[in-house]
């Protein structure tokens, strides 16, 4: 049986393909010329004829759209969707770079690095929401973590700075926990208040303390570590395994959380607390304590995500350095349907968009750069509009737990 809603969704995907086809055929085919992508640091590069590529992919999209609208692609539709997205991105890149060349490997390396705070922020969101507390405060936790990480690392060392950032994230998470769990204040209000507070206090302190004392905000960030053997894999090795410890930590965190959430006692209890806390409560699970603990873990994870800015990249704190990445992380949580791997892929998508815009924002494509800059947000809008209907949020997220 296929319900009206499912038909509608399938139809929307079909129109989506046709939309991609139009963009590819009309816009991406405009610029003749070859696009050069450097695939290794050495200089091995791939050259693609942009126009021909656009025509081929455009026709493929028309075909996919027609197939989807005519009878649906059934079980393979998700795989096809992923492939189509990759093709579209490829076509876009060829169009934007046609006549020039740039380092693809460098851009992808940058993508992976930039995904760290979004991934960790999203994991913090998943930890909270899976146990039944909505975490709007990811942005605040990242920002406060970045600030304290910068100060801590400047005054002591990088390790200690990271620990301070972790403690800061945990402190804010504890505030969220006390207000939303104990005092049962609306979770969104507390979350937002924490965001305001973090933004205000870090700006305030950066003017009042950091500006007159520049040595409080100056450190040498960590260097990338090449993983033996793995980093020697062509192309992939450079992208995934010549990275800072923050990147490796975020990989590990995604893997660990996925395992823990679906394969352990803790995960079972956490998901129960997020879906139907009373079921866990009546079996003697202390839901309140579980939520406290998970929020604190989330705070710690977000704290590390915040520390990425000063310690993982730029070596200092600037006012509002997170620039809304916490909200992007929230979008990644929804995009990834509350699954760590899903959220990670969401984070990669956003980070990729950021890297693209930094890399080829300067190329003259004939389209105002502002439109390229807003593209990731437009894409998110379309994706959320198309996907969220099918997603399944933890049922109890947002509801205070009443022990009776």
């Amino acid at each position: 049986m296929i319900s009206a809603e499912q038909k509608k969704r399938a139809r929307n995907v079909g129109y989506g393909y046709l939309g991609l086809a139009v963009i590819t055929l009309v816009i991406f085919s405009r610029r003749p010329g070859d696009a050069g992508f450097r695939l290794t640091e050495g200089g091995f590069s791939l050259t693609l004829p942009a126009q021909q590529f656009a025509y081929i992919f455009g026709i493929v999209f028309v075909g996919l759209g027609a197939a989807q609208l005519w009878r649906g692609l059934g079980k393979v539709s998700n795989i096809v969707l992923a492939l189509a997205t990759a093709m579209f991105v490829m076509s876009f890149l060829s169009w934007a770079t046609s006549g020039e060349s740039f380092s693809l490997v460098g851009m992808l390396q940058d993508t992976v690095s930039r995904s760290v705070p979004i991934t960790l922020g999203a994991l913090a969101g998943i930890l909270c929401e899976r146990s039944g507390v909505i975490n709007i405060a990811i942005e605040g936790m990242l920002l406060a973590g970045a600030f304290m990480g910068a100060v801590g690392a400047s005054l002591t060392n990088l390790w200690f700075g990271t620990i301070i950032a972790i403690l800061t994230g945990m402190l804010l998470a504890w505030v969220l926990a006390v207000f939303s769990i104990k005092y049962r204040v609306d979770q969104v209000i507390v979350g937002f208040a924490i965001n305001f507070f973090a933004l205000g206090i870090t700006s305030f302190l950066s003017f009042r303390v950091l500006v007159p004392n520049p040595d409080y905000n100056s450190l040498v960030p960590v260097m990338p570590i090449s993983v033996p053997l793995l980093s020697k894999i062509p192309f992939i090795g450079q992208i995934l395994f010549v990275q800072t410890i923050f990147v490796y930590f975020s990989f590990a965190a995604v893997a660990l959380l996925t395992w823990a959430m679906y394969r352990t006692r803790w995960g079972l209890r956490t998901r129960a607390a997020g879906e139907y806390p009373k079921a866990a409560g009546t079996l003697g699970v202390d839901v309140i304590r579980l939520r406290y603990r998970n929020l604190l873990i989330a705070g710690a994870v977000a704290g590390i995500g915040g520390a990425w800015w000063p310690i993982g990249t730029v070596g200092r704190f600037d006012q509002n350095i997170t620039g809304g990445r916490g909200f992007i992380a929230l979008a990644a949580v929804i995009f990834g349907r509350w699954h760590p791997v899903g959220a990670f892929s969401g984070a990669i998508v956003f980070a990729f968009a950021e890297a693209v815009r930094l890399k080829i924002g300067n190329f003259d494509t004939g389209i105002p750069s502002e439109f390229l800059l807003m593209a990731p947000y437009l894409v998110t809008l379309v994706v959320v509009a198309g996907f969220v209907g099918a997603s399944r949020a933890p049922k109890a997220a947002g509801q205070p737990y009443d022990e009776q």
Partner: protein
Amino acid sequence: MKLELRGITKKFPGVIANDSVNLSISTGEVLALVGENGAGKSTLMNVLYGLYKADEGEILVDGTAVNFHSPADAIKAGIGMVHQHFMLVPVFSVAENVVLGSEPTKRFGALDIERARKQVREVSDRYNLNLDPDAIVEDLPVGVRQRVEIVKVLLRDAKIVVFDEPTAVLTPSEIVEFFSIVRTLTDAGKGVVFITHKLKEALTIADRINVLRRGKVVGDADPKTASESHIAEMMVGRPVQLTVNKATASPKQVVLDVKDLSIIDPDGRLIVENVSFNVRAGEIVGVAGVQGNGQTELVEAISGLRRTSQGSLTLDGKDITEASPRQRHTLGMGHVPEDRQRQGLVTGMTITENLVLTRYHDSEFCNGFKMKWSKAKEKAKELVQSYDIRTSDPDQMASTLSGGNQQKVIVARELSRDIRLVLAAQPTRGIDVGSIEYIHEQIVKERDSGTAILIVSTELDEVMALSDRILVMYRGKVVADLDPKKASHMDVGLYMAGSRPENAVGVNS
């Protein structure tokens, strides 16, 4: 093991839910705790289970006082509880639900799901419960979910098992099956507390009966000698009429006509399949069936809240298949929805506002843009009077009313309009006997004035007592059209369970 409650008192703002209650239960016996809705049965059991802290009194296990701070303590002391609303995580498997809170683990806290499966299979086999540990709970029928709850309790080695209104969601044959499970439990040396408001069942299964009224134990009864009406009187505090008083119906023209109706839910499941029936002016048609057999969706489709995927609906000869809920209201459809808190009322609004919720757009109450609140207030005063809604001020929030009075608000609002058809889903669920009697009376009165009435209830007794004609739904289909005067309880029950009684009587052509 012997469990005793002594002088338990539990107060909530404005009410004394339990007033120095004494109770005792030993292993091997079945104690029935009866009382009407709101008498304090559930509160008492929540005190026993460590969910509430009693203001006064003590709990004794084998003579020693114990202190339960949480369900964990109660579980440790050998008390298990099967809640009225099942405490199951819908997206989890049976095994995951059963072991939640006492999970078998391997190294690093990894879940040993293999052992969990084995545990479920063992207990399920020992007590003949027949459960698949890998089934996902939300796909299971209600009766099976209850067995999952029972396994949960047994696996934790409970000596005393409390069942809170366990039969509310079962078919008559499932109830019989349930009773045999209860017997197996007592034979295995467990004590059972059976909370119910259904006296027949209490009389059938219990060894002793305790009656609770307004938070107090008002007496006990011996099921061998006591009569139903006697216990009912103790329960309510006055003689109670056990049947609905009504004259024979004289049905006239068809008001609601349902033809070949099918509903597919958003996940692609076929919920209602090719249902056809009609309701005439001046008759009450009752839809019987176990919860989850498509009745909810059927009512939602008739009221316009759910899309149909096939078939047609006609009201007074007009095709309303594609009509909006508002159009259906205007054409004379009144609807008492299944869940008053979720659908029927906006509890954060005043009683007045709730009384005009489905008719604020009438020219009586607004001029298309501006509300005539003074008119609405007048109307509210009038309805509060004539429908006996107990409140000091209609401008108070609807959340301040008791369940019975909230239901009266909905009934008043829907019946006082100019209507041709009433859809009433679970019209008396969870409310006190006085309100039940009153609402039944109003429904019969409405029928006698020539309105067509469709009642949906999972309480078979209610359907049997009120209806002039009974439709039985099973797995989305109407499987029988019966005459309640001729068909027996047991026959209806068999239809509800999906089988067909031999030599069935009372089948309408």
